């Protein structure tokens, strides 16, 4: 489940694939998004709260209009994605795949603009830098990678963990990255001059 960035709407998921949108203030049900055929495993609101992206075990990623509950489009079919992240400006949606691919869609046009295949195993986490210039992905392949959001160029690969890297986060000023791993360690990565 997720709150919209403005806190007004709460999205919850159910085992049958339905996603329900609730008015956070009153607890009233706003709408039910039906269309997924399997459990929804991730939801992400766009920064303007207008769009909800959902990823499901039915191997699709769908975009919904929050205001009306209308299905906008189905972005991915036949591939399982889990982490979803909108860029801070809402322009792109990044999804990490169970097979290690990272896909980037333009949110406005729903056009797939990049498929990044550098990760060898499932992608666990996606995080944008605060200014949206880059995003980081972490993976079962024990690495985290940083990508330029505009060019989708791989900027760097952070290696050193001995096990799955489950989470990656940027510091608020964007100059420090932290990774968390199943190898029982967390690591801090900084920009060195």
């Amino acid at each position, binding site marked *: 489940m997720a709150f919209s*960035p403005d806190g007004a709407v709460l999205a919850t998921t159910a085992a*049958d694939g339905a996603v329900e949108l609730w008015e956070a203030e009153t607890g009233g049900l706003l709408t039910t998004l039906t269309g997924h055929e399997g459990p929804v495993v991730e939801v992400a609101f766009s920064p303007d709260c207008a769009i909800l992206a959902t990823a499901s075990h039915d191997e699709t990623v769908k975009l919904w209009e929050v205001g009306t509950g209308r299905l906008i489009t189905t972005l991915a079919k036949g591939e399982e994605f889990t982490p979803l992240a909108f860029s801070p400006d809402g322009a792109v949606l990044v999804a990490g795949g169970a097979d290690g691919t990272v896909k980037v869609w333009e*949110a406005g046009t729903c056009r797939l603009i990049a498929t990044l295949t550098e990760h060898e195993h499932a992608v666990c986490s996606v995080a944008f830098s605060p200014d949206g210039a880059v995003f980081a992905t972490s993976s079962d392949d024990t690495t985290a990678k940083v990508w330029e959001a505009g060019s989708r160029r791989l900027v760097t690969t952070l290696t050193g963990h001995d096990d799955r890297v489950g989470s990656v986060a940027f510091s608020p000023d964007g100059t420090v990255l932290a990774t968390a791993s199943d190898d029982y360690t967390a690591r801090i990565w900084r920009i060195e001059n």
Partner: protein
Amino acid sequence: MAYVLGRSRAVSPQRPEKKNDRPMPRRPLTGIPEGLGTRRCRAGTAPAAPASAAEPLTLRPPVGRPAVHASRTAPPRRSCPLPSDTGTVLAPFHKRSRCRFLNRRVGGRVNIDYSRLRLHAALTGHREWIGSVAFSPDGAVLATASGDGTAKLWEVGTGRLITTLTEHRKCVRWALFSPDGAVLAISAVDGTVKLWGQGTVGSSPLSPGVGSGLARWRSVLMALCSPLQPQTAP
């Protein structure tokens, strides 16, 4: 949520006749958490939460905002199964501000040379997997949440361990700072969320399975964002 949704056969008791309910009546929000709690995680063979803790709360920063904390999937090998598949995200409760949709060019100018990222510190001390990392709003402190049942706070600059928070008996899934940095919320797979105020040793455990669901949820959210209520336990 992301990580743990099993292709579960569990039936959500809150949604008995969804298809027939048209138009959908406005139902109280209190029904949701219990429904979430009925599902199983893929990694686990049994729900970790006791029957009474029907509403596992997990905390995550608001999706889509500049994130200091990322979404993630379930680790494949958990020694401690997660109780809720989707109950992952509790964003801080912000005042109703209209977000602006700025459909700018994709990706801003890259001001920071991320190719120069180097390992600064390896934080060792946890005795199990680390599920999440979160920075404090000022970037000075990093919180880690681990399957060993503890959360730890680290000085980002030096990598020094500041403190270990050991109140939880089960795997700790998320640790999250409130936007003002005054409160650290830690959620565990036992369905509890504990809020820590800076400079205090005690915690204020919230038992989300008890009492009014909505009130509980909202109190947690409000506590997370209110600088004046660092330790709210309604």
